[in-house]
């Protein structure tokens, strides 16, 4: 069966490549200020080798680090009407969008991929905090709907990596409507008894947390990720008291029963493989058999559509 026939032909994706200028050979850890050599950092999936701080990772880098052989088929959602409100604050919304597109090389804040994870077919969706704060607008909503539809068509699990400050204000009420829209999409998935795994990454707040990010069968978070509905400053102003140490951090939410697990990025792949295979009632994956994922800065290898 050729699954591509079900969809618009996916683009063969190419791995992200950074130019090696002396400027970006070193990255300073936001937490411990250690200067980290870029190769070392990339090998460690953008996790500080000194203090374990999880830095931002692009959706493409994340997919490369998870899918078998780093290869996946990218697919796209229907493009929404551009700038439906003709929104303008200090800048025009289309200008903000263009700037974000130029900065990230992506069309919007959610990347979709289909492929093998530990030889298990999965759809993955990853939100890009670097794209207008990952904000949820029509494009993100359409992407989640497309991800659910694809998972239903392929009868496979959906793994979603959330990262957003909340809804995209420049789309007004239409951004808010992504809360019910994405919920409808998830219901289609759940009615087919297909797993929905949410990995909450730093930060996941506002309307994103109050919709799809809290509707998973399993909730995993990356260490120290900020997760919540209201912003800490708003809360402090409202209740006039200092918030406790670690408030709204992944470990805090784990303690309060909102998450199943807090898992390091380096362990995420094995854990996801294990969970989705059990939920899909598949035999255990034999690690020695598996093709390892790609290194996230591997420039020599062009990924291609997963063959199986």
């Amino acid at each position, binding site marked *: 069966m050729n699954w591509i026939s079900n969809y618009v032909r996916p683009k063969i994706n190419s791995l992200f490549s950074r130019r090696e200028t002396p400027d970006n050979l070193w990255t300073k850890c936001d937490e411990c200020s250690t200067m980290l050599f870029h190769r070392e950092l990339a090998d460690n999936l953008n996790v500080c080798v000194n203090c374990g701080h999880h830095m931002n990772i692009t959706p493409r880098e994340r997919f490369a680090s998870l899918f078998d052989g780093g290869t996946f088929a990218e697919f796209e959602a229907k493009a929404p009407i551009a700038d439906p409100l003709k929104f303008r604050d200090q800048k025009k919304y289309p200008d903000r969008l263009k700037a974000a597109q130029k900065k990230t090389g992506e069309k919007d804040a959610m990347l979709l991929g289909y492929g093998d994870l530990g030889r298990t077919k999965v759809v993955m969706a990853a939100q890009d905090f670097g794209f207008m704060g990952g904000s949820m607008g029509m494009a993100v909503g359409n992407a989640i709907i497309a991800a659910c539809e694809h998972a239903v068509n392929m009868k496979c699990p959906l793994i979603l990596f959330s990262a957003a400050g909340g809804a995209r204000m420049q*789309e007004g*009420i239409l951004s808010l409507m992504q809360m019910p829209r994405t919920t409808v999409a998830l219901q289609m998935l759940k009615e087919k008894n297909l797993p929905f795994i949410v990995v909450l990454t730093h930060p996941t707040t506002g309307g994103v947390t109050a919709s799809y990010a809290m509707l998973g069968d399993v909730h995993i978070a990356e260490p120290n990720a900020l997760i919540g509905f209201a912003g800490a400053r708003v809360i402090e102003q409202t209740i006039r008291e200092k918030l406790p140490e670690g408030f709204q951090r992944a470990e805090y939410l784990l303690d309060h029963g909102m998450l199943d697990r807090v898992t390091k990025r380096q362990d995420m792949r094995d854990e996801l493989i294990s969970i989705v295979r059990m939920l899909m009632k598949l035999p255990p994956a034999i690690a020695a058999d598996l093709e390892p994922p790609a290194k996230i800065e591997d420039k020599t290898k062009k990924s291609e559509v997963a063959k199986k």
Partner: protein
Amino acid sequence: MQNYLEFEKPLAEIEGKAAELRAIASQSEDEMNVEKEAGALDKKAQTILVDLYKNLTPWRKCQVARHPDRPHCKDYIENLFTEYTPLQGDRVFGDDTAVMGGLARFDDQPVVVMGQEKGNDTTSRLHHNFGMARPEGYRKAIRLMDMADRFGLPVVTLVDTPGAFPGRGAEERGQSEAIARSTEKCLQIGVPLVSCIIGEGGSGGAVAFATADRLLMLEHSVYSVISPEGCASILWKDAEKMREAAEALRLTAQDLVKLGVADTVIPEPLGGAQRDREQTFVAVKDAIASSLKELSGKKPKQLIKERRQKFLDIGSKTLA
């Protein structure tokens, strides 16, 4: 004592003068006849009122939507429903007094009615937490919707909230999860769900109640992803730019109908719902009745299917 909004100042002055004149006349020994003068002031006040409300800016609509004298959830329940029987508690942690709801009859038909109550004086505002729900409020809503679904009762929600409560305990007890589950429940029940935004539809806290088959909005109600003040302070870096933000957000009932988010605008009396409560109750009751009538007779599966499709379709309409 009537409360006036800032932009109603010219109106307050004239109406105040007329009231003062009548008060003086009634207290004077020979019962001075001032009706001619007072009547002239009334007429002038009416002209100002018409003028002020002819083209309310979005920011002014936000103010009217938050008017302290505006009828609130409790008033609608008392005036539109009979046999209201409040049901309380989330069966997990507590009862959230920001959310009221229970069984009632609407034109003799048993229904589940619920909504956020803001309160109308300092004591009741504090009691109802200004209509800002905690997780227990959303979980109570979920419970009531489940009950409605089980017994085949239509659900009517009355939405009036600045948003979900930003508090420590609310976060610790899963505010996000509670809102997400309430929205999900709205999309799962096989009974008619009619929602009316009577004042402020504030962000996710409103979505959890307003994800309905039919969304009715009072003429001067608003529904928005963020408050104009919040939006101004983030995007303009200046909370004083709320007028610009209110304009840009397109949060009025009129714009939301164009965008396919709301279905019906319910006209308000001149000067807002608070100026003629009875007229407002009649208009809201009629609108809810006709929505329920449209939905009656639909099978559960059909209701759910159409409700879901309605939300999937949002985004295909523009303001033009």
